[in-house]
């Protein structure tokens, strides 16, 4: 894994404006300049291929891609859409044009911005800003999206003018401007099943094993293990493939609700070397700044810091850490039934924006609070615009059921911009590669071909996924209800909680940015928001993460 930062200028421009970025070894070839900041693998523009590519476990036609020459060959053959695995690349296709691309699901990131007649791009926002060519001005609508989703979906970043290349897209840069096209689409699903349930189950099992194989490191496998079905099945499959498996669970202390008995049961069943990492609340908050500085776009998921610390812990033992991310978006996770019910109770679900509003509520973050949370002028500027990017998905003809539309949105939005984005950026500083076999592209394509009623069957979520691995795990793990890895933020931040005073102090710093209504912040910290399930703790965390991020990036409104 590496980071790259490049500045490309049009043929007619002189290259002297090229900035050196980070640990840079700039190369200037002809009319365009490239600066690269290697983190682990050294990635330099190859003068012969005019290509820079960073990749991890990429495959074409069941063959591992191991050289830049292979990349050049497949690019020239127009076969980028057939590549499986994580990658980000820039290719000077002709002397007059440059092509940028990332993998289909968002395992790697590329950010870019136009600067005069040129284009600057990098694998992190930090590097892009370090070019010195852009101001770190906040984009208000993206800010509201962050508060709504706890991540930043779509092509926007929190900075004005700086964009993220969406997964599965090509950006072609030439004298005629920028042209973005999708080289990959999520498969649609219409009509009746074409196979029996047993056949779907067998296909899925095979797909899971192939996804694991594509990510196998040399030697032992290391994997996070929450005790939920997704991480448990990854561990069980790992044990089938390697005799030596190390597993890691997170704990925040016995005083809080946890899933350790389940992860312990899976570890014993699969005979792994199991370790529980316990984090005190103070340790989590103390590492917030470090974690947020890695992220580019902020993520307001309380698991961000524990994930970061886990990568740090594992980095001395392995260069790959498996996880169970992706099971929910691909196989009918817990958002679906709630959305179906909300849809059922809508007076006019077909009316413009109704389902979109419900979806935004389903994140259970700050969407309902935005009007009183944000400064009035800020709220007026973005009011009514949050749902627009969702509408094409809810109106898509590619799917004939709400379940499949939701799955598509969850894969594209949450999968790409939260789940994969998070593990990619948090692991990078430690030189660890995150392996997310349940978010394997081939497996995602396979999952979208499975009838929705085999994903959410009755009230059973992820039914077909569970059945595909039933022989590998105890029924008590397979059939347990979804719990999710709980970070006890309600207990930590409530008045009298161990982090209340610290959080209050930090949130008071938000007044510097003139984004939030001080009265709202005071009510939040007094635990007086009111309403059903106000989720004070989750909102405090989202704002703490933002405050940390604002400082790290010296962002201005």
């Amino acid at each position: 894994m590496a980071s790259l930062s490049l500045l490309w200028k049009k043929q007619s421009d002189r290259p002297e404006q090229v900035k050196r970025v980070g640990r840079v070894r700039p190369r200037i070839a002809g009319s365009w300049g490239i600066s690269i900041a290697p983190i682990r693998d050294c990635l330099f523009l190859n003068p012969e291929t005019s290509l820079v590519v960073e990749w991890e476990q990429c495959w074409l036609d069941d063959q591992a891609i191991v050289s830049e020459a292979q990349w050049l060959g497949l690019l020239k053959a127009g076969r980028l859409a057939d590549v499986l695995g994580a990658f980000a690349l820039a290719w000077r296709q002709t002397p007059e044009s440059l092509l940028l691309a990332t993998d289909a699901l968002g395992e790697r990131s590329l950010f870019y911005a136009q600067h005069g007649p040129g284009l600057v791009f990098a694998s992190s926002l930090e590097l892009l800003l370090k070019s010195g060519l852009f101001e770190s001005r906040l984009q208000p609508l993206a800010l509201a999206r962050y508060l709504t989703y706890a991540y930043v979906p779509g092509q926007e970043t929190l900075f004005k003018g700086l964009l993220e290349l969406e997964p599965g897209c090509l950006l072609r840069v030439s004298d005629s401007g920028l042209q973005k096209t999708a080289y990959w689409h999520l498969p649609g699903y219409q009509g009746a099943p074409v196979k029996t349930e047993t056949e779907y189950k067998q296909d899925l099992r095979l797909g899971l094993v192939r996804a694991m194989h594509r990510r196998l490191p040399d030697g032992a496998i290391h994997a996070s293990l929450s005790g939920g079905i997704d991480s448990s099945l990854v561990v069980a499959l790992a044990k089938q493939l390697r005799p030596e498996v190390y597993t890691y669970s997170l704990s925040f202390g016995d005083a809080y609700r946890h899933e350790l008995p389940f992860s312990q049961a899976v570890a014993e069943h699969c005979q792994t070397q199991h370790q529980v990492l316990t984090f005190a609340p103070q340790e989590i908050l103390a590492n917030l700044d470090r974690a947020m500085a890695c992220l580019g776009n902020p993520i307001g998921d309380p698991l961000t810091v524990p994930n970061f610390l886990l990568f740090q812990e594992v980095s001395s033992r392995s260069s790959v850490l498996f996880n169970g991310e992706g099971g929910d978006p691909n196989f009918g996770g817990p958002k679906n039934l709630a959305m179906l019910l909300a849809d059922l109770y809508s007076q006019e679900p077909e009316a413009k924006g109704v389902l979109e509003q419900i979806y935004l509520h389903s994140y259970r973050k700050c969407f309902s609070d935005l009007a009183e949370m944000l400064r009035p002028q800020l709220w007026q500027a973005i009011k009514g615009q949050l749902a627009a990017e969702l509408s094409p998905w809810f109106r898509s003809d590619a799917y004939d059921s709400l379940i499949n539309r939701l799955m598509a949105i969850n894969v594209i939005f949450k999968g790409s911009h939260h789940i994969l984005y998070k593990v990619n950026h948090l692991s990078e500083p430690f030189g660890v590669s995150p392996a997310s076999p349940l978010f394997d592209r081939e497996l995602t394509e396979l999952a979208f071909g499975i009838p929705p009623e085999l994903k959410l069957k009755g009230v059973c979520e992820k039914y077909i996924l569970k059945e595909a691995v039933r022989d590998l795990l105890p029924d008590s793990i397979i059939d347990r209800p979804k719990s999710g890895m709980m970070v006890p933020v309600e207990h930590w931040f409530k008045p009298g909680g161990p982090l209340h005073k610290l959080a209050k102090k930090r949130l008071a710093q938000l007044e510097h940015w003139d984004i939030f209504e001080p009265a709202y912040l005071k009510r939040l910290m007094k635990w007086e928001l009111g309403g059903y399930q106000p989720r004070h703790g989750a909102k405090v965390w989202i704002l703490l993460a933002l405050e940390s991020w604002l400082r790290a990036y010296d962002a201005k409104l």
Partner: protein
Amino acid sequence: MAPFLVNHELDKYIQLWTYAHQKPQSLIIPGEKLAIEASRLKELNQYAVDKILVCERPEMVDFFVANRFHMEQKCLVMTAGGYPFQETDLLFEKLRGLAKLAIFVLHDASLKGVKLPVYLRKQAPWVSKQAQVIDLGLSAEHASKLEDYWHHQTSPAAPDDTDYPEWLQHYKVHLAVIPPLQLLNRVGRMLNMYAQQRDASSSFESSFETDDALAVLAWSNLGGAGDNDGDGDFG
């Protein structure tokens, strides 16, 4: 007896408020029955719920739905007759087929109200024999702790009501005496307790219907902000 604000008086105050300011944003307007379109019925038929909150009166259903209780708890909310759904045939057929359905019942402490769980257990056409009906109250026991809120029954006792406590022949306690936030939180907690116990114990069905429901709704202090715990997004 505490003074009651009857509906037409409340409507008058709301009109005054609306005249002076504007219509309150979160005001719950009695809902029209929902006509579920064929496409949504098809989706409903493919999936299922494992719990329903049955409310005695439509305005209670409107209240829970307006607060997205159905979404938070992944449950249906309706009256025994199927409100707010206009077409109930397919819905009822679906519900009849759900053997492991837990039906939570919420009603006034009144003769009519306390009969509702009995009706659901014995007569409701959409309840399967295997479904579990859990009476959340208000019961006679609850009412005894809410004496300031009693008011007179408006209908006379029927002959088969003799098994009910004497005071129910004369008085009732309206569910609306419970502050809205407490009602949401405590019913929500009830459903969560049910799910946890069901997952933890196979003998749950025989043991749950004891004092658990009473413990949830029988409180002496009606003040306070309620319970605020919540988890993360749906995944």
